[in-house]
């Protein structure tokens, strides 16, 4: 029963994507939806790390950047095939995640946040300053799109389907991880690391594994960004973006996979909607975040469910 439910969910997701993709009015919306898709991929990984395993990272923009820049540099400077570049970006980010993760994940709470923050800043500065490799502040232009056997993901529609097919794949993988022996162990570490250890959970190893997974998700999104937008600049991969990613996780709901979808979507669209307010944009954005966090501290999805439940009970009672 549960098995079919999962196939049904996946089928529904792809049906929505297909309908949405064929109805899209213009390039602007495709670009925006693709950006949402990329953010969802990163936020799903970050939620596995933060919401489930309880480990904070303020440096995930760096992995996004590593994926994007590996793709950009290899395809543009060295004429490597985009798909191979994607794989190279994943390998590099995975390796960096292991090197950073082994010492950093020994830390807890704020200290881990500080360590990952430092890592994020180092990568951001490197992307900015290593002109000879990264093109410096002006970034890269003319990054080629993905192609399979001579056919290229060039049109907005093709890019849309590529991005959202991968969003669906990552969503499935994440749902499976959460609902498994590994997902349980991660939540156990979050609730009581002492007890998890006493039950034989190798907490250090699992934390590292999930850190690497989240880095791979972010690198995948970075490479997709490079090959769909075809232009990248270091400003997209700075400290502010790391913070924004964490905000997406929290607003959507910690330890809520579906919340990640909503959190990423809302926080990607909101700045666009608020653009009409010009200078007040940031203020209103901040205000909305405050209101959400004060009234729906468990995130949008659970918060709205609670509200709905509350209303229903009130109606029944009155």
């Amino acid at each position, binding site marked *: 029963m549960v098995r079919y439910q999962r196939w049904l969910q996946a089928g529904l997701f792809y049906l929505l994507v297909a309908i949405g993709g064929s109805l899209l009015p213009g390039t602007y919306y495709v670009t925006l939806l693709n950006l949402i898709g990329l953010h969802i991929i990163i936020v799903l990984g970050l939620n596995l790390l933060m919401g489930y395993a309880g480990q904070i990272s303020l440096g995930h923009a760096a992995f996004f950047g590593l994926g994007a820049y590996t793709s950009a540099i290899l395809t543009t400077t060295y004429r490597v095939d985009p798909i191979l570049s994607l794989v190279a970006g994943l390998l590099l980010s995975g390796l960096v995640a292991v090197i950073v993760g082994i010492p950093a994940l020994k830390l807890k709470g704020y200290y881990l946040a500080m360590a990952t923050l430092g890592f994020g800043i180092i990568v951001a500065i490197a992307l900015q300053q290593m002109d000879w490799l990264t093109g410096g502040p002006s970034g890269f232009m003319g990054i080629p799109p993905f192609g399979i056997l001579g056919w290229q993901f060039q049109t907005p529609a093709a890019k849309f389907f590529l991005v959202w097919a991968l969003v669906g794949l990552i969503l499935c993988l994440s749902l499976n991880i959460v609902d498994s022996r590994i997902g349980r162990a991660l*939540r156990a570490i979050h609730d009581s690391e002492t007890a998890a250890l*006493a039950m034989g959970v190798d907490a250090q190893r699992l934390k590292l594994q999930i850190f690497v997974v989240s880095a791979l998700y972010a690198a995948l999104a970075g490479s997709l960004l490079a090959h769909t937008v075809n232009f990248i600049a270091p400003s997209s991969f700075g400290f502010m973006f790391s913070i924004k990613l964490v905000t997406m996780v929290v607003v959507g709901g910690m330890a809520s996979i579906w919340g990640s979808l909503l959190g990423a979507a809302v926080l990607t669209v909101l700045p666009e909607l608020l653009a009409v307010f010009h200078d007040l944009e940031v203020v209103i954005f901040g205000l909305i975040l405050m209101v959400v966090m004060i009234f729906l501290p468990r995130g949008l999805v659970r918060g709205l469910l609670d509200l709905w439940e509350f209303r229903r009970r009130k109606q029944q009672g009155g």
Partner: protein
Amino acid sequence: MSASAMLSLQDVGISFGGLQAVKKVSFQVQAGQIKALIGPNGAGKTTLFNLITGMLRPDHGLISFLDQPIQGLPPFQIAARGISRTFQIVQLFGHMTVLENVMVGRHLRTRAGLLAAALRLPWSRREEAAIRAQSLEWLAFVGLPARADDYAANLPLGHQRLLEIARALATEPKLLLLDEPAAGLDMTETERLKDLIFAIREKGISVLLVEHDMSLTMEVADDIVVLDHGDLLAEGPPRDIQRHPAVIAAYLGRDWER
């Protein structure tokens, strides 16, 4: 020294700053035995548990389990060798259901990794079903099957203690350490706990328990170790311990005879 000792401590000690929490403690737990560790507050009982399970590393001394040295191993490896425990201050996974808590106990004896989980491979799905079935059995064993889907944090303390025992048993231990399992239980619950401890021994699992409830301790324990200020004060069967002058002095105060 005897070949059948399951757990053996030899001159084990640890100090925190200037305080010698455990001095030079040596004792053994035999296979199939129920052994109790008693002593006044601050005697070093929980510290000793933490040393045995690898939460703390002893400053000196040897701890061996099934003739293998285990001191200094990380806790999860000691758990893998067959020592499981409960906690004096309950350490459940509060945001998880009762059943899920026990399922974490099966972690050690199952193997689906990240990749198998992410891809939901057929064998990992079968393993998952087995984990669920075995965990339900352990819940039934401790008498909590009706609460399987409640959040662990919402259970009353007595049930939380039982859940910790079920979770520990799910790791298939050869030796189970119970840290004050009767603390906070009422009389009927304590009576049921006593039966449960005997049932655990029936399964071939040795038990080492720290307990303040003397009547429970005297009833279930085959053998008692008395600690006081980090020192081993006495060791022997319950009826000897009850009459031991040093034990009486430690419990009633040294000036008692005056």
